């Protein structure tokens, strides 16, 4: 279970003051739950995801993971406690091959075979043979990189995975597969997923939907209750104000 308590994150603003990016967020995300976080651009969604992974540190408030206070823990410590993070804009590495990255993701103890690494790539719709020995560098397109990023998260298979806009930059055909990937991840394990997304079809397969705007939780609830309101034109404005 992930608990966010009175979470705030400020950055220095122009001049002397500060700007609130995350403003007193309180949220509890239960185990084995698929939570979609949505809301307008610039509302603080990606920052919230980074706070959970430890890439950013909150100005105040606490983050508890299965009852343990992880607020002061490093990214590495959180990763080893079972939290994963898929970047919105995946990182490129000269010289590190797709195979190497998937092996690192699976963990040093697993000594992942090439065949198993290929399975993870196939799951995200990449023809493994063509990619496994390629470098994760500028020769890969944005969409390819994005799918490899998702494959690294599947390979990690941790109790909590946070995806920051996984659909961005992915073509329509792959998007259908992506939906299947998330459905399968949710159905075949007891792991929890947090997916930041603007896509109705991703919101539609979630258990819970959280709307974040202006750094605050505007609404939270079951998908069945939330989705109709979000989709009904004028109504949705109330979350976005």
């Amino acid at each position: 279970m992930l608990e966010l308590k009175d979470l705030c994150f400020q950055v220095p603003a122009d001049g002397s003051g500060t700007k609130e990016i995350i403003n007193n967020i309180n949220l509890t995300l239960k185990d084995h739950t698929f939570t979609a976080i949505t809301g307008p651009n610039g509302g603080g969604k990606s920052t919230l995801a980074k706070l959970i992974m430890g890439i950013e540190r909150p100005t105040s408030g606490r983050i508890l993971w299965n009852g343990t206070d992880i607020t002061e823990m490093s990214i590495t410590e959180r990763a080893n406690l079972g939290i994963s993070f898929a970047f919105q804009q995946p990182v490129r590495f000269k010289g590190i091959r797709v195979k190497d990255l998937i092996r690192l993701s699976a963990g040093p103890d697993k000594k992942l075979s090439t065949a198993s690494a290929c399975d993870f790539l196939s799951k995200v719709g990449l023809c493994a043979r063509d990619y496994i020995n390629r470098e994760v560098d500028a020769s890969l397109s944005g969409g390819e990189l994005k799918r490899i990023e998702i494959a690294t998260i599947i390979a990690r298979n941790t109790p909590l995975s946070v995806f920051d806009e996984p659909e961005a930059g992915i073509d329509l055909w792959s998007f259908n597969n992506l939906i299947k990937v998330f459905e399968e991840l949710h159905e075949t394990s007891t792991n929890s997923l947090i997916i930041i997304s603007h896509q109705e079809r991703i919101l539609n397969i979630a258990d819970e939907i959280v709307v974040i705007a202006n750094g605050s939780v505007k609404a939270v609830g079951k998908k069945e209750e939330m989705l109709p309101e979000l989709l009904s034109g004028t109504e949705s404005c109330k979350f976005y104000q």
Partner: protein
Amino acid sequence: MDEIQKTLLEQVAGLHEMPAGAYNIRANGASVSRNTTANIDIVTKTDKPGIDIVIKEGTKKESVHIPVVLSQSGLTEMVYNDFYVGDDCDVTIVAGCGIHNSGDQDSKHDGIHAFYIGKNSHVKYVEKHYGSGDGKGERIMNPQTIVELGENSFMEMETVQIKGVDSTKRSTEAKLSAGAKIVITERLMTHGNQTAESSFNVDLDGADSSANLISRAVARDNSRQIFLAKINGNNRCAGHSECDAIIMDNAKISAIPEITANDLDAALIHEAAIGKIAGDQIIKLMTLGLTEAEAEEQIVNGFLK
């Protein structure tokens, strides 16, 4: 050979035992072992230290190993090795130098390798440099490579210096005839107070000749590196040089690419980039459970692979 020399040999030539094919192993200034084949002859020079390696025309799928190891502190040597490769050959040449210096005096190996390559031949040349030992004496290597490539010949040259060489000044010069091609890949890492200077001078003299110089370098601690790449396009030709360097700690790196077109149809490109390890790269690997130091190690190892 003793254990230290055997370890050096393994590092520079990947050899656990005597290699197949032709070889000449030089240890502490003297040739300790040699083998020639029907197609590859190795002859000791009479006028200066070094050997002539003569490869008959039409020699295919054969290799020559000529590693050098130095384990005696204070030894300084200058060696001239000349390679005569006939027409229509396809050979692999593995050279390399390992210095173990546990004494207080400098140990130094300077080598001049000259390649005279005939027509339509393919030569793969691999050179590794390695230093070990914790003495105050420096481990110094100054390799010089001179290449003359005949018509339609192709040379692939890989040089690696990853560890333990205190000071190196390497120079590579190549002249290419019509249709000849050279691809040079350099991997260099310096640490501590090491200095490394690597310079290339390639003359694309023949029509449709081409050159590709790729350097990947990492400088850590207080080390200093200078990379100079000159390509002269003297005919219809294609030349490309690329220096990609990671700078860490208090190191300093200079990359000085130079391209000169002396012909309207010379197409020349240079690229040079120096930067520290991107913060995003470290963060990504930390989200996979690596510590910051482990992440850096993976990034550097991958970069130099």
